[in-house]
Structure formats: C-alpha cells, structure tokens
C-alpha cells in the first residue's frame, strides 16, 4: 500500500533537488559585487521612509475575513449551478438553507456596524 506513494517521494526528491541545485549553482557561479546602493531596499526610486513591518488597522483584517467568506460562497455556488440538473430539488433546498444561514450572518455584521469604516 505504501509502495503506491513511491512516485510521490521520487517527485518530491527530484523537485527539491533540482530547485536546490539551481540555487547552489547561481550562488557558486554568479558574479557578486555588492555595494551599498545594491543592498538598500528599493522603494520607487525614493530613499526608504520607514520599516516595512508597521502596525495596521485591525479593520483591514475584518474586511479580509468578510471577503474570504463571500469568496468561498461564490466558489460553492458555481459547481452547484453547473450540476443543478443532477441534484434536483434537494440540491436547491440545501442551497436555500445555506444562503439563509449566510444571510443571517450578513444581517448580523451589517447591524453590528462591521461594514462601516468610521
């Protein structure tokens, strides 16, 4: 049973080995003449203003989560729509239930003000 996974193992070894080989080759063969201009971070031609690791507003996080939620909903709706002729009435009913649950969640976040920026 485990022998079935041998091709996967070989594939992993080849992929890892090839990737590693290219990096090592570039490291060994490539010319390296670093100076301060080359090593400084590039920011549209300006001097770098500040550290790139800054605190940002937690509201972006909320928006990102809401986006994932509705993105997944769409990802779920497409295969459902394509196979609608095969799944019949139970399929429609299931989707209605699913969308109703999502709708309740949507109303909840709207009412709680999650969609307002200020």
């Amino acid at each position, binding site marked *: 049973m485990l022998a079935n996974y041998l091709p996967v193992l070989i594939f992993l070894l080849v992929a890892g080995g090839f990737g590693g080989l290219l990096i090592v080759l570039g490291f060994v063969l490539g010319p390296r003449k670093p100076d301060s201009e080359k090593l400084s971070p590039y920011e549209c031609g300006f001097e770098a203003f500040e550290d790139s690791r800054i605190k940002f507003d937690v509201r972006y996080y909320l928006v990102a989560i809401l986006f994932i939620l509705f993105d997944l909903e769409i990802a779920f709706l497409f295969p459902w729509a394509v196979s609608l002729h095969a799944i019949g*009435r*139970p399929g429609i009913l299931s989707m209605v239930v699913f969308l109703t*649950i999502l709708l309740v969640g949507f109303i909840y976040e709207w009412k709680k003000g999650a969609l307002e920026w200020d």
Partner: protein
Amino acid sequence: MTAVSTSYLHDLTLSLPEVFLLGATLVVLFVDLFISQAHRQLTYLLSLLTLVGTVVLLVAVPEGRHVGFAGMYVTDGFARLIKLMTAGTVAAAFLYSRDYLIKRGLFKGEYFVLALFATLGIFVMASAGNLLTMYLGIELLALSQYALVAFDRDSPIAAESAMKYFVLGAIASGVLLYGISIIYGVTGTFDLSMLAQRLDAHALTQVGLLFGLAFVMAGVAFKFGAVPFHMWIPDVYHGAPTPVTLFLGAAPKLAYFALSFRVLAEGLGSMAGAWQGMLMVLAVLSIAVGNVVAVSQTNLKRMLAYSTISNVGFILLGFLTATPFGYRAALLYTITYVLMALGSFAMIILLSRKGFEADRIDDFKGLAQRSPWFAWMMLFFMVGTAGVPPFAGFFAKLYVIQALVEVGFTWLAVVAVLFSVVGAFYYLRVVKAMFFDAPADDAPIGGAFSFKVLLSLNGLAVLALGLFNTPLVELVAKALR
C-alpha cells in the same frame, strides 16, 4: 426524483433536533440584534427555550440505530444520551452564568448564541457516522470555544488565553485532519462503519495506518487535554471568565468522549491493539502530572484545571480496556465528572462579585461560617471528585478500576489508585480552608434564588447518584448496548 426527495425528508426527520437547534439559534441571534440592552433577558429566555425544544425533539426521535445522509449521520442510544446530557449541561451553564454576566456588563447575546453553536457542534460529533462529519462538529465546537474564551474583550488575560487556545487548537485540528487524511489514503473511505468492515487484524501491521492513527490520537488527546497535550488547559481555564470556564469544563468533555468512542472504538476498533498502548501512556501521564501539579496550585480555577487533566486520565483508563464494560465505565465517569465540574465552577461564581473573582483557595476560607449549606455543597463536589464513598465519583472510579482488573491491567489500577490518594490531598485542602480557617471577608453570599436551588440540586445529585447509582448505570448500559 421522488425517491430522492423521500429519503431526503427521512434524513431531515432523523436530524430534526439538530435542524431545530440550528434554526432556533439563528432566530436567537436575529432577535438579539433588534432588542435593546434592557430587554436582553429575552435572549436568555429564548436560548433556554431552544434547549427545551431540542430536548423534546430528541425524545421524539425513534429509538434504535438509524442512519441518514448516506451514512454521514447516525442516531442511536449513545448519540441520544450524549445529546440529552449536553442539552441539560448547557442549560445549567446558562442558569449559572446569568447573574455573573449581568453584574459585569457581559450580558450579551453572543455568549448564548456561541454556546448554542457549540452545543450544535457537540450534537454533530455525537451523531457523526463519517470522519468528515466528525471534523465538522469538532471545528464548530472549537471555533465557538475560542470566541467564548475571548468573550470578555477588556480582559488582557482572557485575550491571551484565547490566543494560546486558538493557535494550539488550530495546530491540533490540523494534526487530527492529517491523521484522517492518511487513514483515508490507506483505506479509501471516510465512513466509520465502512472503516470497521475494511480493517481486520492485519491493520496492525500496516505502517501507513499506524502512522495515521498516531496523528488522530494526538488530536484526540489535545482536545481532551491529556498529558503531554495538556498545556492549554490551565491557562485557558484560568484566563477565561468563570461562566465560560464552567461551560468549557463540562459539556465539551461529553463531545470528546463521543469523538473517541465513534472514531477509536467504532471505526478503528480492530486496531485496539495499537491504540491501547498509546492511551496507556496518555492516561498514566495525565493522572500523574494532573494530580501532582494540582497540589501546588493556589488558584482554584488552575487547581480544577489540573484536576480535569487527572480525571481525563481516568476516562482514558476506562476507555483503553476496549471492552463494553470499559466503555460503559468511561462514559459513566465522564457524566459524573461533568456533574461535579459544573458544581465546582458554579461555587466560584456564587462567591464572586463585581471586582472580586473568588478564584483563589484562600477566598473559600471560613465558608462554613458564612454559609454552612453551600460549604457542605462544595464539600460534596470536592470529596466527590476525590472519589470518596458514598459520592458519585467513588463509584465512577470503582467501575473504571474494575474494568481494568477484568482485562488484567492490574498495575494500571494500582497506579490510578495511588495517584488518587495524592489527588485527595488538594481536594481536602479546600475542605480544610472552608471548615477550619477563619473567614477572610464576611460579605454576604449573593446569588439569585434559581441559582441557589440549581446549585443545591447539583450538589445533592452528586450524593444521590452515589447512594442510588443503579439508574445512571442502567442508562449508560442501555446507551452502549
């Protein structure tokens, strides 16, 4: 087409308790949105009504084993018992938490809605006939729990413990899912009854299966909080608001028992030879570490957290015998423990007031003078959990030890008894503080009338189920035929 619709309807009828619970929880969430803080009691009442309605539907579901949704959903005596116990436990948790939440300005609909969603997760786990259904239930329960721990947003310690719980819990879920995927890779099925059919004695020689089993076991042990996967328990129990700790410490234990029973006993039953050894290590370590570390705790919530770990060890001890009697003993132990955990945490809620959490053992000093009745109730919970006759905890421990001796694990029984003696020390220390020390403060004992009645019933139940334990034993035996 009609054939499909009828079977769909049949499936929905079987899962009516879950369907109702989901629908009613959504209604609670919706209603809570549109009422003012002054009418928040409505959310509370609706949540209790939801549980009552669920119990009525649970009783109405036909007895015997029924399978729905193409094997994804199973209802039988075991699922029914777990669900009824869960509904009762959650209702008790609601009653216990109301005053605490009101006094601290935490009386929000989200507490009840999240707890109801967690209940739904437990229901799904109890009725899982498929590894995927099981995982769905676990995640629904776990996500609700993470949010509940962080429920008191202004408390930094609650936020910290929620963060720890979330990160560790997510890793554990990943480990469990990885194990499930390996088992699927080897056997080609997620269905638990199909797994039981396809696996035979040869399963123990298949490296892939053993590999998958080890990961599943790590996930289960984390959920239970068995050593060495117990690190989250003390921090989460300590950091969460007491009503949330009360919730976490009680109902989910039933769910995790259902998880181990459905997956290990029903699905991977023929691999018992492999998981017995793993459970043995987990159980002995849990009993040892839990009992010994609890001795040095001064915070009652932390002490009860370590007590949970040692009790989980006992549940696993009963389970690892892999005999029908052992499963029954473990389930009986779980139910008894849940009852006593509810009461112990409710006592902390009873003594606490705004700005004072009463979660140190010193806060219980001289309780016998301030309120003799509730000092006795706390004595019932402490001595009951320690396993002193004639309380319920004694018989639960007795059955587990009997199950162990029956299959020849006498040395495990000896280890369990020895560490129980160590454990008795810290339970009795609370009793000593209550009865022999002078009171540290003499504020009157608060608590609403319904709270006190429920707590008294809870305490008397611990005594009554020890004196007359036949009904509970028969109930468990009927569920696990």
